[in-house]
């Protein structure tokens, strides 16, 4: 307690130096916490478009343009993904779940529609069921379809009507508001996967390009353990080869790298540089404080303090500064995060994932998505910054007091 009181007296007595040292620690903590919070928000924003699909990775393969743009065709970025390839992905370490889909355009002389056949999983038909605005959901064995609400409104469809896909007709079971949560993996008409597979298998323009079988797909949504996202993406990319299109948070980040300077690693690098400067300043401040107090330390030795006691005293003073500095840094960081609230990022959606043919004039769509992500202070980064401040301050005390020390009497003698 005496040591703490002495430390406080000393820090208040040399308040200028104490303040500057604490502020340098606070700035480093502030930079580390705020920059990583911003970087974390950017990272979260980039995940949003794909996360709203319900997956972490979207698998596609680029193919060829059909000889004739009529009837049911596969869009250029949605070539055949054979069932054995899907099976390999399913067994990859880190893959939690997988949803197959068949995505097609139905190009008729008098109409156009995009059709998505998808499995009955949490990411597939079940999700569509949650976005139902009218009618009822469909299941894997249904012979009915769901319509996108915009498409239904534009074409005056309602529940109970019949919609044609290719030459076949299907009753409308329900209408869904798929736009509510994003722009990816959207279609005008949603059908169970088996129906889409059957339609694709018999479609001449599909068969002209691909040996599409009844169990194949041309779009696969993969849920991944986030910690293993990078290796899984690498493996899928290797598996699909040069024509593979693997969309994920990572590809989104790459696409934005030109304008987004605050990546997670960049935030850490900037914070680390500030941290190194702060550490150097703390060391310098401790060294000059100890140099100024050599005589005082000799007095302490003269009144019965060992060097260990003196080291503990300087350590307590530095730790007190570290506590004050990190606390101030954390408080300011929390205030800054609160004041900023959120970031707004405009994400360019990959062309490959566009649900609308670019050659249809009326189908021109905005392929950007404006995403707001909250800025949240990471507790682990706050803890790490606090630990860093404490460790740097403690090391500075030890390092400075490990330097050679003069004989105390040379500082105290009268002559």
């Amino acid at each position, binding site marked *: *307690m*005496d*040591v703490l*009181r*002495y430390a406080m*007296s*000393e820090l*208040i*007595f*040399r308040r200028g130096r104490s303040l500057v040292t604490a502020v340098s620690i606070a700035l480093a903590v502030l930079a580390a916490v705020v920059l990583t919070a911003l970087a974390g928000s950017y990272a979260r924003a980039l995940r949003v478009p794909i996360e709203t699909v319900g997956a972490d990775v979207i698998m596609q393969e680029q193919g060829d343009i059909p000889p004739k743009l009529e009837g049911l065709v596969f869009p250029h970025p949605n070539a055949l993904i054979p069932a054995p390839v899907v099976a390999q992905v399913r067994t990859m370490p880190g893959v939690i779940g997988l949803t197959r889909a068949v995505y097609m355009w139905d190009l008729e002389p008098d109409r156009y529609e995009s059709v998505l056949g998808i499995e009955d999983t949490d990411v597939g038909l079940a999700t569509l069921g949650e976005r139902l605005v009218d009618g009822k959901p469909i299941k894997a064995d249904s012979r009915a379809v769901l319509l996108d609400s915009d498409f239904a409104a534009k074409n005056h469809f309602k529940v109970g009507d019949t919609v044609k896909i290719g030459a076949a007709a299907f009753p409308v079971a329900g209408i869904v508001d798929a736009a509510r949560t994003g722009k990816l993996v959207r279609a005008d008409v949603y059908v169970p996967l088996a129906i889409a597979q059957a339609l694709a298998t018999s479609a001449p323009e599909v068969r002209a390009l691909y040996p599409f079988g009844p169990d194949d797909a041309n779009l696969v949504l993969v849920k991944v353990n986030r910690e293993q996202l990078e290796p899984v993406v690498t493996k899928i990319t290797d598996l699909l080869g040069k024509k593979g299109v693997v969309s994920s948070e990572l590809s989104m980040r790459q696409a934005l790298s030109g304008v987004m300077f605050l990546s997670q690693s960049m935030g850490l690098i900037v914070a680390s540089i500030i941290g190194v400067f702060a550490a150097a300043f703390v060391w310098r401040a401790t060294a000059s404080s100890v140099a100024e107090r050599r*005589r*005082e330390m*000799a*007095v*302490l*030795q*003269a*009144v*019965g*303090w*060992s*060097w*260990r*006691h003196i080291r503990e005293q300087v350590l307590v003073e530095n730790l007190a500064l570290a506590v004050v500095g990190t606390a101030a840094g954390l408080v300011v960081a929390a205030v800054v995060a609160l004041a900023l609230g959120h970031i707004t990022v405009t994400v360019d959606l990959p062309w490959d994932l566009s649900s609308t043919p670019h050659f249809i004039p009326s189908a021109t769509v905005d392929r950007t998505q404006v995403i707001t992500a909250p800025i949240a202070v990471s507790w682990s980064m706050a803890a790490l910054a606090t630990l860093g401040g404490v460790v740097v301050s403690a090391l500075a005390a030890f390092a400075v007091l490990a330097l050679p020390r003069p*004989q*105390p*009497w*040379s500082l*105290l*003698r*009268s*002559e």
Partner: protein
Amino acid sequence: MKDPPMDAPPNSIAKSAPPAGQPAIRVDGVRKRYGEVEVLKGVDLTVGAGAFTAIMGKSGSGKSTLLGIIAGLEQPDAGDVFVMGQKLAGTGDRAMAELRRRSIGIVFQGFSLIPSLTALDNVLLPTFFAAMTSAERNRRATNLLTQVGLGARLHYRPAALSGGEQQRVAIARALMNSPSVLLADEPTGNLDQETGKAVLELLIDLGRTHGTALLIVTHDPDVAARAANVVEMKDGKVANVHA
């Protein structure tokens, strides 16, 4: 300056006594060299328990160096020093600190108070790591400061005290651990004559009251005149000892 009130000494800290038949301080053949200059050339000295001894000599005679070596704050090149029967040579930092904490009080010419601490906290410094309760330590420090006439200035920082008052605080601090040996290096050197005289009286009185061996390094013949023994140093040697 008015003499301070002299109360009975606070007895919270047990004073260590030298082993039977041993002096409080014994210096045997101590030598010390700074570069080319040999400051001490084989000094022998004995200070009895409770005795008041003054060391006199011209500047550069080695008297301050000798005091620093006795305090264990300077290392001799040769010879042995015993304080309260304990040989200083080979004593580690912790054990030396413990010896100073238990047995040695030191008063410096330049007061050497910690500027950030109050008078009371400066006096408490030697007992920061002592096995005493906070209340005991505060009571003892307050009593000592009252004895040296600073009972009303417990919470003053050194900068707010006069030179004489600062030296009184330093004396109270030196007596805080109830030392068996009190070493003073020109304790009146920075004070005017009247204040210096008062401080000297205080040192002698408190030393006597506390039963402490007092070893003072001084230029001042008036100080030496009060000592039971006067050691004259010349060119790094003890030239004369007057009883």
